[in-house]
């Protein structure tokens, strides 16, 4: 049963064909079986997951209406505050910290009757594209255990590709939902900035961060999107508008007459040939479904990566200043011989990993007197130009498209000591964070050169998130013969339908 989609699982629970408790037990059993190889989970919350499942079953028995995802098991990125479980954010500096309130996203998940199985691994403070900067070990890609699962939400994506959960909630600052979704062959959407609450989400770069959904199917992802989205007075940058009709769009998949703009700057030279091949195949699918394919140019996207690596570390250096060893988290050197400043320095030196240190120092540099105008000031202007490129491109096209990432998953360890190579994994995803518009990654099939999953990125204007799902659903019907991609860990060779895999 756990190899089915979230919507199928929910429908069977609602119909009384299976109980939510049976699903939760099967999923916990699956985690016990395969997570030794994947290491997606940092904490499994079996007892409460069973209680949450029982509550759904009791509700059904009492004849109360169930939501469309009631009883569906979900994994949660370890960046969301969820009382009763530690929140490490992938960092040793927060080891053992228990939040004292729930994130808005968590409250909404629980209200929708989702069953939270536990918390999953991530790059430290969401900084990375491979989950290797986590202070709690590597997560392995279910398609090839020697490969990275993407990042920073690598645990989310890997847990879905390994069928350890039916849905997952993550966050995206520069591609942290879309890139792991792409390299795991699943769906991941970065909603419009401000449409999903950041309350209770450990902050990385506040003008860029947004929580969002992962699923194995387009409809599942849309259902989760609808469940967690919407205005929240506790987030001062929340957009007070209705959630776009994402579920209806995922059910429709109608792209007739839709203008699909291929971004000239995101593709071609420097991109893996197999990635471009699958990208072009997807354009063919959309064209046959009635979309009009056009070319658009966004010349300032060439500066997006550079501007991002000034703005993001600047915000990081400010946000991570809160880890001062005084009110919560690690404290080192408090033996009476060190002053408060020394304790801060020792704690941050020991508690932060290499990438966190790199970015904090980079941000400190970009914001320091004498460099502010050349770096932070210039990057903010480049951001304006990127927003203008999007505005112009969205006059010529309803959605913009590109590969999600220039390559498929690379080997664990390959880019660990080459930060720039690591950063380039987010070349295509960063522009949408800079402009705040929505974007999603949808499975494009397997790259013919290495047999690994490729992601197709769709970008739409702010609060037009439904368009992403329309395109994603149109692709899903044709890619891989209309069957979901199934990772090797699922026990079957690539290309076999999920339904053919024996239940555990």
């Amino acid at each position, binding site marked *: 049963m756990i190899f089915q989609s979230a919507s199928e699982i929910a429908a069977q629970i609602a119909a009384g064909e299976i109980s939510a408790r049976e699903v939760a037990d099967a999923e916990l059993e699956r985690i016990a079986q395969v997570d030794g190889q994947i290491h997606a989970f940092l904490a499994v919350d079996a007892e409460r997951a069973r209680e949450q499942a029982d509550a759904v079953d009791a509700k059904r028995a009492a004849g109360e209406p169930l939501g469309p995802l009631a009883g569906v098991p979900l994994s949660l990125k370890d960046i969301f505050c969820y009382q009763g479980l530690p929140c490490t954010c992938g960092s040793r500096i927060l080891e053992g910290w228990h939040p004292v309130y729930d994130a808005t996203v968590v409250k909404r998940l629980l209200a929708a009757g989702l069953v939270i199985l536990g918390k999953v691994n991530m790059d430290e403070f969401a900084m990375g594209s491979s989950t290797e900067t986590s202070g709690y070990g590597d997560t392995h890609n279910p398609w090839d255990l020697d490969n990275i699962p993407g990042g920073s939400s690598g645990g989310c994506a890997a847990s879905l590709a390994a069928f350890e959960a039916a849905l997952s909630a993550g966050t995206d600052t520069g591609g942290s939902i879309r890139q792991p979704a792409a390299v795991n062959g699943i769906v991941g959407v970065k909603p419009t900035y401000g449409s999903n609450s950041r309350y209770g989400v450990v902050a990385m770069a506040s003008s860029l961060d947004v929580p969002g959904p992962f699923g194995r199917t387009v409809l599942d992802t849309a259902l989760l999107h609808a469940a967690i989205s919407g205005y929240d007075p506790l987030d001062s940058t929340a957009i007070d508008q209705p959630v776009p009709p994402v579920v209806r769009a995922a059910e429709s998949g109608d792209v007739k007459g839709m203008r699909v703009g291929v971004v000239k700057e995101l593709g071609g030279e420097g991109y893996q040939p197999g990635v471009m091949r699958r990208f072009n195949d997807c354009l063919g699918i959309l064209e046959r479904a009635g979309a009009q394919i056009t070319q658009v140019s966004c010349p300032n996207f060439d500066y997006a990566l550079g501007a991002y690596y000034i703005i993001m570390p600047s915000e990081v250096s400010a946000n991570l200043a809160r880890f001062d060893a005084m009110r*919560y988290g690690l404290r080192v050197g408090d033996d009476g011989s060190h002053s408060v400043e020394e304790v801060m320095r020792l704690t941050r030196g020991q508690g932060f990993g290499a990438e966190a240190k790199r970015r904090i120092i980079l941000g400190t540099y970009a914001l320091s007197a004498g460099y502010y105008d050349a770096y932070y000031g210039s990057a903010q202007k480049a951001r304006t130009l990127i927003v203008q490129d999007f505005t112009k491109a969205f006059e010529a096209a309803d959605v913009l498209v590109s590969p999600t990432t220039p390559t498929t998953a690379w080997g664990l360890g390959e880019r660990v000591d080459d930060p720039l190579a690591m950063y380039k994994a987010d070349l295509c995803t960063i522009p949408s964070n800079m402009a705040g518009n929505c974007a999603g990654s949808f499975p494009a099939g397997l790259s013919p050169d290495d047999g690994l999953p490729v992601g197709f990125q769709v970008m739409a204007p702010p609060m037009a998130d439904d368009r992403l799902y329309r395109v994603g659903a149109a692709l899903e019907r044709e890619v891989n013969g209309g069957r979901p991609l199934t990772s090797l860990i699922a026990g079957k060779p690539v290309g076999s339908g999920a339904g053919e895999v024996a239940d555990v």
Partner: protein
Amino acid sequence: MALTAQDVAKLAELARIELSEGELAHLAPQLEVIIEAVAAVSQVAGADVAPTSHAVPMENVFREDEIRPSLSAQAALSAAPATEDGRFRVPRILEEEA
């Protein structure tokens, strides 16, 4: 521009991060490569381009100033590394013992 280990040490001090000699030597060339790669950004926009700090148009958000439930002192202190008399206990602030 060349970024030396001394420059990185100065930045680490501003950021309150203790770094070993080894870390300083490792970080300096890495940061220099990153800074070189992002430097082109300073050439992109002219003086006439307005900066964007936030992607969505922002307005100040107001609400009624009313008393609402909040964290108890006990909850707020529950994750503290050290407490004393219902308060956060911190290492000495001044260099000299009082």
